[in-house]
């Protein structure tokens, strides 16, 4: 019997980011409107595998996800062994736009979760003309620090174990065990200091309360979807953020945590498909 491949294909390309050659892993599935997907801090693009195998999505969208440098199957740039990794608003934005340019995407839709949701607000404020629609999942304009991230990278605590244990409660109790643990496996696999370096962006370099008033949703529509069990980006954080952006639509998702697309994909599509339908309606 012939092997049954999933419809996802992955390839590698080297892009120049921040003046350095970065070998990136990019995967995609489907045809139609380009939909660029941004993974959470300390994980990788595998979080979007369920979107990429859902015909209700891939019949209409070319779903593309890439691993940021240092993440997943993308390598850190040469010289990483002497560096402390730190993601910033500038380097994150450059990576997203560089991938969109390299793939020659024509005003893609974009979905980002957690820190990927945070950068959505910056893209909405300063690069709205590059996108046809933006979806911020677990998205808020800033976050007050609620734990000491130095615990995530030190020699006397196993990095993979503690990263997963710190975020395990961000998965909703109702999420299927299989997908709960697959989501956490991403955190267990993250390279040393990578989750902490992503949180530099999330905690220190992305207080976007100053730029949410700049967002014009008539130029690019914006949806915010947040799980009720997310205590990192809380429903209150998202609702406050949406209240400051004219035209932004916020939905609080029942029985969802911080990783909807990977922790409970069946539940997430109930919320996402209507948004994608509206993006298609605007495009058609």
């Amino acid at each position, binding site marked *: 019997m012939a092997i049954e491949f999933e419809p996802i294909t992955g390839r590698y390309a080297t892009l120049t980011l921040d003046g350095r050659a970065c070998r990136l892993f990019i995967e995609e599935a489907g045809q139609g409107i380009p939909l660029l997907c941004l993974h959470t801090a300390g994980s990788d693009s595998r979080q979007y595998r369920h979107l990429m195998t859902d015909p209700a999505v891939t019949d209409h969208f070319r779903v593309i996800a890439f691993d940021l440098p240092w993440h997943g199957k993308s390598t850190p740039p040469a010289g990483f062994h002497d560096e402390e990794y730190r993601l910033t608003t500038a380097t994150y934005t450059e990576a997203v736009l560089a991938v969109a340019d390299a793939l020659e995407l024509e005003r893609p839709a974009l979905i980002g979760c957690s820190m990927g949701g945070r950068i959505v607000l910056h893209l909405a404020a300063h690069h709205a003309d590059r996108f046809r629609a933006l979806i911020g999942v677990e998205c808020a304009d800033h976050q007050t620090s*609620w*734990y000491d991230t130095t*615990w995530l990278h030190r020699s*006397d*605590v*196993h990095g993979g*174990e*503690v990263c*997963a*244990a*710190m975020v*395990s*409660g*961000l998965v*909703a*109790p*109702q999420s299927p065990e299989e997908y709960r643990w697959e989501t956490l496996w991403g955190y267990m696999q993250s390279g040393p200091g990578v989750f902490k370096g992503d949180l530099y962006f999330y905690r220190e370099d992305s207080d976007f309360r100053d730029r949410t008033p700049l967002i014009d949703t008539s130029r690019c529509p914006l949806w915010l979807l947040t799980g*009720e*069990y997310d*205590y*990192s980006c809380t429903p209150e954080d998202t609702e406050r953020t949406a209240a400051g952006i004219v035209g932004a639509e916020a939905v609080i998702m029942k029985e969802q945590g911080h990783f909807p697309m990977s922790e409970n994909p069946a539940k997430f599509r109930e919320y996402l498909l209507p948004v994608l339908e509206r993006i298609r309606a605007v495009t058609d």
Partner: protein
Amino acid sequence: MTMGPRVAETLSRLPALVNHDAPLVRRGRFFSGDFLVEADQTPVHVRVHEGRIEAVETGPFRMRAWRFAIRADASAWIRHWEPIPAPGYHDVIAMTRLGVARLEGDLQPLMANLRYIKEVLAAPRGHDRSAGGEA
């Protein structure tokens, strides 16, 4: 019975709930030590040896030593042990974020064994008599 002693009574069943759970004991095999769980004003001292719960004692204590403490409102522990806890009460770290729990002492052994400790503290979930509404 006030809520603190009710939580202590639930915690007293940790040896039965944990020590028969072989995967959980295995995850804790590198942890031996004492920690304190507090529910309102009621302190509960837990002694672990290589992942097995050796002793659970309810205070008050005089000069009792421990490596780290997890203190929470007694009502928060009871909500933590409901079969499907409400958002914010479903995880010890979430409870600290919510402001109903706090971590104190030497946090290194806690963080090095965080999954194990969280699962030990969640072990009464669905088994807590006080969460079932019994008086």
